[in-house]
């Protein structure tokens, strides 16, 4: 297990801030798209690309790379921004989000942007495919790890639970699911629309190893993920508690930001807030 130095942690927190700024810039340029989920997963994606995963930005098809699947494809802006900020493509390309001819489709596509591993958007299909990849790694004795980011509302899909059962049957300890537990979905709170609690107990009952942490605390998330990854014999889930819209004051906690972008003026305010936060992180380093 690698320990995280204070300098490295500061670097990652600044990166997460850059990832958030990239999300805002791409969304305002697109004029449509999702804000709340991408912003709340910026810390998790930064931890994955910046610390946890084995990957090579200059060789996206490296056969031994860890596989990262984004099951809830609508939060693609966070993945695109993380990829750009970690060197997969120039950050300017983020401004093509959702436009005709772009690689950055409204929902991510494997064929247009290969390292996204799979096409997603239709909810609830990521863990099942991740289970297949993890099983394939086991069959071939490969060491790569499979990470699946999934939203909380995806836990209303039957297929997701078919995957939970299957991964446990095969004892896929090379598979880690990360739940964006922000308690929101389109029509309101997950607990009003279709209650998910007690979520951790559900996974435990399905023979998974269950971890819970603050998904907006990079250090806590990395420590939890390293512990999870060390599990043997079982798949693991990290229930990452997040604040929807994290980092932009007027979006935080408000489900109505699930599926709309900021307008120009709102984006400027968001970018100013993010810039101030960036200065704070550096000042306290």
């Amino acid at each position, binding site marked *: 297990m690698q320990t995280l130095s204070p300098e490295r942690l500061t670097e990652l927190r600044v990166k997460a801030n850059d990832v958030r700024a990239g999300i805002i810039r791409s969304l305002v340029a*697109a*004029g*449509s*798209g999702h804000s709340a989920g991408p912003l709340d997963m910026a810390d998790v994606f930064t931890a994955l690309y910046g610390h946890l995963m084995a990957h090579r930005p200059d060789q996206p098809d490296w056969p031994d790379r860890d596989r990262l699947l984004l099951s809830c*494809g609508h939060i693609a802006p966070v993945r695109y921004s993380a990829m750009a900020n970690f060197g997969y493509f120039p950050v300017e390309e983020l401004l093509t989000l*959702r*436009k*005709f*001819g*772009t690689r950055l*489709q*409204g*929902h991510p*596509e494997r064929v247009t942007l290969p390292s996204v591993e799979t*096409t*997603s*958007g*239709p*909810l*609830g299909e990521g863990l099942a495919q991740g289970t297949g990849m993890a099983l394939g790694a086991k069959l071939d004795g490969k060491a790569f790890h499979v990470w699946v980011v999934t939203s909380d*509302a*995806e836990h*209303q*899909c*039957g297929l997701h639970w078919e995957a939970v059962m299957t991964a446990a049957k095969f004892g896929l300890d090379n598979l880690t699911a990360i739940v964006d537990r922000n308690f929101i*979905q*389109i*029509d309101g709170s*997950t607990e*009003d*629309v*279709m209650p998910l609690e007690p979520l951790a107990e559900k996974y435990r009952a399905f023979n998974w190893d269950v971890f819970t942490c603050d998904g907006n605390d990079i250090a806590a998330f990395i420590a939890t993920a390293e512990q999870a990854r060390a599990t043997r014999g079982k798949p693991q889930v990290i229930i990452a508690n997040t604040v929807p819209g994290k980092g932009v004051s007027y979006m935080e906690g408000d489900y109505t930001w699930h599926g709309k972008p900021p307008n120009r003026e709102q984006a400027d305010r968001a970018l100013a807030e993010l810039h101030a936060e960036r200065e704070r992180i550096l000042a306290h380093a």
Partner: protein
Amino acid sequence: MPSTTLDAAAQAMRLIDYRTGVELVPTRNGFGEGLIEAGTRDRNVLAICADLAESTRMEGFKKAHPAQYLEIGVAEQMLVALAGGLAAVGKIPWIASYAMFNPGRSWEQVRTIMALNDTNVKIAGAHAGVSVGPDGATHQAIEDIAIMRVIPHMTVVVPCDAVQTKAATLALSKRVGPAYLRFAREKSAIVTTDATPFEIGKAQVFREGSDVAIVACGILVYNALMAADLLAREHGIECRVVNNHTVKPMDEAAIVDAAQTCGAVVTVEEHQKHAGMGSRVAEILAQRHPVPIEFIGVEDRFGQSGEPTELIEYYGMGTRAIADAALRAHQRKTK
């Protein structure tokens, strides 16, 4: 001086004088309005949604008839099966999601629980077609007509505008049996009025002409009307435009009559060319009155992100593309 630019057929259909300007309203709004009214007329009408109340326009029903509204989360297979159960005990459930997910994800449940089982469930398939726009291919249902029209006992309706979508919602609510109503996301031209007749299974002649028949459904009916005017202006070719809103059961007599009168047909739909409304027209005409047919639709490809009109043009469903297809059909018949 006639006070209208409409021909007799269009006047009989009580159309808007669309050449002098149209209002743009999403077809999904018509569904929302019709659903509220259906829920008032019959308290057994239920609306069940899978976490898309606002964009499928079930939200108004939720406010108007809270006791008849159910929310079940992101669970489209459950949506169909639950509705099947409710219908079996006397309810009339309307279930709504994006067409890609219902009937896309739930197709086997639709086939067995709604059709084979013959239950009175109505599907509202929202965000059909590439005109969904920036969301991209994963959300653009362009195969749904194919998978629904192939199911025995299913009724499949693709109304041409918001006003007709309301009429179709009310008509389907009264008709007993499984049904699929397909509509779109984007604003589109209103050409019909409250006085326009609407009967499931009865195609409508929106423009008279005897050179080529343009048989269209959905929001592209307006493009078909524009293409017909273009051909009249530029080539003196007069097209009959048929609003073929019911894909199943299709109005075979109207299709055969159009082929007999015009001798050439163009079909127009925001769907794969393969196995869609146009393919059904071809099946009918191959047996009953073969004529040259051209197809407007997506040519065996997936959609992608972009602006709605940009995508309609790119995939060859714009006014000019329809006019060109009609010219080709016309040339083939006179050869």
